[in-house]
């Protein structure tokens, strides 16, 4: 595709429910990243995929968060038993080869609101 796409664009859920956020990276990009941005805050790294494997999961805040990537394309970020502090914009980015320091191309984000 022309760019990184994410769905849904907005998600409102009740505390305790599970949510799935989807990211479609730019075709051919081997590296995929998930970030979180709380209102008025900077980027918070969550997880990095190189192909289908995740060499760096260090940013996942708790075991309620998990992510997978299949077919070296689509990735899904799952948050189980959502809490109000999970409310944020979740951003996905991709890059051609995952080289450290390379540019990353971002999707429009999913705005998650946990009531």
């Amino acid at each position: 595709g022309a760019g990184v796409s994410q769905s849904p664009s907005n998600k409102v859920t009740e505390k305790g429910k599970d949510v799935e956020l989807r990211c479609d990276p730019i075709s051919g990009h081997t590296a995929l990243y998930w970030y979180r941005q709380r209102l008025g805050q900077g980027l918070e790294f969550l997880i990095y995929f190189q192909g289908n494997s995740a060499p760096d999961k260090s940013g996942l805040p708790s075991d309620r968060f998990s992510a997978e990537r299949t077919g070296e394309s689509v990735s899904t970020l799952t948050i189980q038993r959502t809490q109000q502090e999970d409310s944020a914009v979740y951003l996905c980015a991709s890059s051609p080869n995952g080289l450290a320091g390379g540019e990353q191309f971002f999707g429009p984000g999913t705005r998650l609101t946990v009531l």
Partner: protein
Amino acid sequence: SQQGEEDPQALSIQEGENATMNCSYKTSINNLQWYRQNSGRGLVHLILIRSNEREKHSGRLRVTLDTSKKSSSLLITASRAADTASYFCYSGGSNYKLTFGKGTLLTVNP
């Protein structure tokens, strides 16, 4: 940390004027990148300048890099209302985790 520090924190100009913002960083770099974020178009990569380059142009954007001073500047010429956004720099080095400072909030008044 590859985080840069942007200056000024806020800048307000009239449409058609030029806007200059600065970035300082602390670590050695392979490149210096500028990103823009606004509510309409999200977070967008603007331009990348490599450590062995001193100046780079892209459309109305001009970036300079001074590795001896660990600083960079971003010039936006003939600004438009659509340039209203927060601008962030990132010093690309040995880490793939993007981290930003507080950014420069640019407001372009019509």
